[in-house]
C-alpha cells in the first residue's frame, strides 16, 4: 500500500526554531495580496490599454468636436470652445427630428409590448421542452443579420412586391407603405421584437403560478387578474424590454435608411448626414453625445430596476 506517509523530515523537535522560512508577518500577507492584485492588473492591461486607446480617446475627441465650431468651408475650427452646437439642438429642424425620433421609438416600443406580452405569456406557460423549442425559434431571428432582415421588408413592401399583391387581393387596393413612417416602425418592430420577448418571458416565467390562481380565486375575472396580478408582477420585464427596444430604436440608422428613404429622417440618420454630407461635425458630435447620454441614463434605470442581462 502506497498510502502511508513518506518518511518524516528530520526537523527540529517541538518548540524548536523553524527551518527555512520565517514566521508569517502582516508584511508577507500584504505582499501576497499585492502580488495578486498585480497579476489581475496585468491580465486586464491589454484590454484596458486597447479600450483607452481606441475607445476613451475617440470618445474624448467627440466631446472636443461637439464644442468646436464649423467654419465656412465645412471644416472644423478647434480653437475657441463653445456650446453653440448644443444650442442648435433647440432649433426647429433639429428639434423636429428629435421629437419625431422619440415618437417613432415610443410607438415601436408600445407595439412591441402589446405583441410580445401574450406571445411571451404563451411561451412561459408551455412545458419546459416545448418552451425551449419555442425560445430557440425566437433566438434565430434575434441572431440573424440585421441588415438582411431589414432588406427583406424592403423586398416585401416594394412596388409590385408581395405586400402590394396581398392588399390588392384583399380588396383594399394596392397599398404601398414603403418609405413611410409606417414602414420604418414596421422594420423597427421586426428588428427589436425579440428584445421585448426575452425579458418579458424571463419575468413571466419567474412568477409563481399559485399567485395567479389566488388571483383567479379572489377576483374571478381574467382581465382583473391580468391588470392586478400578472402585469404588476411582470413589471421588471416590461421595463427592461421597453428600454431594450426604445433605446436602439431612438438611435436607429439602418432601418430608416432602408425602409424610410429620405423622407423620414431619424436622429441616427441625421447624425450620419452631418458627417458624410452636411459636414457639420460639431453638430453631429453634440447629437452623438446627447444620444449617448440618453442611452446611459436608460441603462442606469435598467440596472436600478434589477435587470442584469445585457
Amino acid at each position, binding site marked *: 500500500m502506497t498510502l502511508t506517509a513518506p518518511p518524516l523530515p528530520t526537523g527540529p523537535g517541538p518548540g524548536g526554531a523553524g527551518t527555512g522560512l520565517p514566521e508569517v508577518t502582516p508584511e508577507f500577507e500584504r505582499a501576497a495580496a499585492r502580488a495578486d492584485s498585480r497579476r*489581475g492588473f496585468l491580465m486586464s492591461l491589454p484590454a484596458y490599454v486597447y479600450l483607452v486607446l481606441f475607445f476613451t480617446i475617440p470618445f474624448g475627441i467627440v466631446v472636443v468636436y461637439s464644442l468646436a465650431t464649423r467654419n465656412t468651408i465645412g471644416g472644423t475650427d478647434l480653437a475657441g470652445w463653445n456650446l453653440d452646437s448644443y444650442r442648435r439642438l433647440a432649433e426647429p429642424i433639429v428639434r423636429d427630428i428629435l421629437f419625431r425620433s422619440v415618437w417613432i421609438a415610443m410607438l415601436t416600443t408600445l407595439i412591441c409590448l402589446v405583441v410580445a406580452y401574450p406571445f411571451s405569456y*404563451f411561451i412561459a406557460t408551455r412545458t419546459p421542452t416545448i418552451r425551449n423549442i419555442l425560445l430557440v425559434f425566437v433566438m434565430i431571428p434575434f441572431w440573424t443579420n440585421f441588415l438582411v432582415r431589414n432588406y427583406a421588408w424592403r423586398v416585401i413592401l416594394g412596388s409590385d412586391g408581395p405586400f402590394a399583391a396581398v392588399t390588392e387581393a384583399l380588396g383594399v387596393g394596392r397599398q404601398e407603405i414603403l418609405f413611410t413612417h409606417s414602414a420604418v416602425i414596421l422594420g423597427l418592430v421586426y428588428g427589436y421584437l425579440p428584445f421585448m420577448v426575452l425579458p418579458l418571458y424571463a419575468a413571466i416565467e419567474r412568477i409563481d403560478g399559485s399567485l395567479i390562481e389566488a388571483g383567479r380565486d379572489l377576483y374571478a375575472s381574467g382581465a382583473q387578474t391580468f391588470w392586478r396580478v400578472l402585469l404588476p408582477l411582470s413589471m421588471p420585464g416590461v421595463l427592461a424590454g421597453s428600454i431594450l427596444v426604445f433605446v436602439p430604436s431612438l438611435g*436607429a440608422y439602418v432601418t430608416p435608411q432602408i425602409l424610410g428613404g429620405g423622407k423620414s429622417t431619424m436622429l*441616427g440618420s441625421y447624425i450620419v448626414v452631418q458627417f458624410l454630407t452636411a459636414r457639420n461635425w460639431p453638430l453631429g458630435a453634440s447629437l*452623438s453625445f446627447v444620444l449617448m447620454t440618453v442611452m446611459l441614463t436608460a441603462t442606469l434605470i435598467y440596472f436600478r430596476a434589477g435587470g442584469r*442581462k445585457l
Partner: protein
Amino acid sequence: MIGGTARPGSVTAWALSGTAWVVYAFFYAPIVLLVVFSFSDDRNVGRWGGFTLSWYEQFIDHSQLQNSLWVSIRVALLSTAISVVLGTLAALALERFRFRGQRVFDALLYLPIIIPDVTMAVMMLLFFSEGIRIAELLFGLDLTKGFTTITISHIAFNISFVSVVVRARLSGMNEQLEEAALDLYANRWRSFRYVTLPQIAPGIAGGALLALTLSLDDVVVTQFASGPGSTTLPVFVFGMIRRGVTPLINAVSVVMLAASIVLVILSLVTQRLRTGETGRSLGDRPRRRSDSSV
C-alpha cells in the same frame, strides 16, 4: 414556473396560441420570402418569375462583392481572435482578482456594449481621420482607412461582448475547483490550463461566435471606419440598397443569411452544452449588437 391560467379550449387559450403563430409567421415569413425571391427570374426584387440561379452567378462574378466578402471574413476572423484573447483575459482579471482601477475598468468594458452604434461610428470616424493625423505627425504612422481601421473598431466592441459572455461562465463556475487544483500540486498556470480553461471553454466558444456574428453584421461602425478602398460585405450591400434594389442583392442577402444561421446553430449547440452543465436558461445570453445597442 407559472401555470397556464387560460383553460384549454377557452377563447383566451385560442387567442394566445393564435397570437403565437402569427408572431412566428411574422418572424419567419420575410426571411422565407427573401430566400424564394433570390431564385426568381424577374428583374423586380419582389416578384416571382420562374426559377433561376443567375443572381448567385452574378454574385460570384462580381469582383467588388467578392472583395468585400473576403474583407468581411478576414476582419471577422482577426477581430474575433484578438478580442477573444483580450476579452478572456479581462474576464479572468475581473472575476478572479481584485486590483486597483478595477471599477473603472469594469465600467469602461461595459461602455462599448451600451453606447449607440451611431455614436461609436462617429467616434471611430473622428479618431481615424483626426486622431490619426496627430499620430502621423508624432510617430510617422501611416494608417489609411481600410482593413486595419475596420478591424481595430470591431475589436473595440467585440472585447466587451466576449468578456461579458466569458464572465458569465466564470461566475457560474465553482471557484473551489481552482482551489482543489492548487491543493493537488498544480501551479497557477496548470490550474488554469487543466481546470479553468476546460470549464470556461463553452463560454469562450460562445463569446467567439458572438464576436463573429457581430463583426459580420456590423454596418454603421464599419461604414465610418472604412475608406474608399476596401469595405465589408454588409457595408457594400448597404450602399447598393441605397442606390436601388436589384435581385442580385437578394442573392447576396441570402448568402449572409446562411452565414448567420450557421453561426446561430453553432451558438445554440455550445449553448446546449452550457445549459446541460449549468442549467441556465436560454434567455441568459447577452444581447447582441445590431443597428444600435443599449
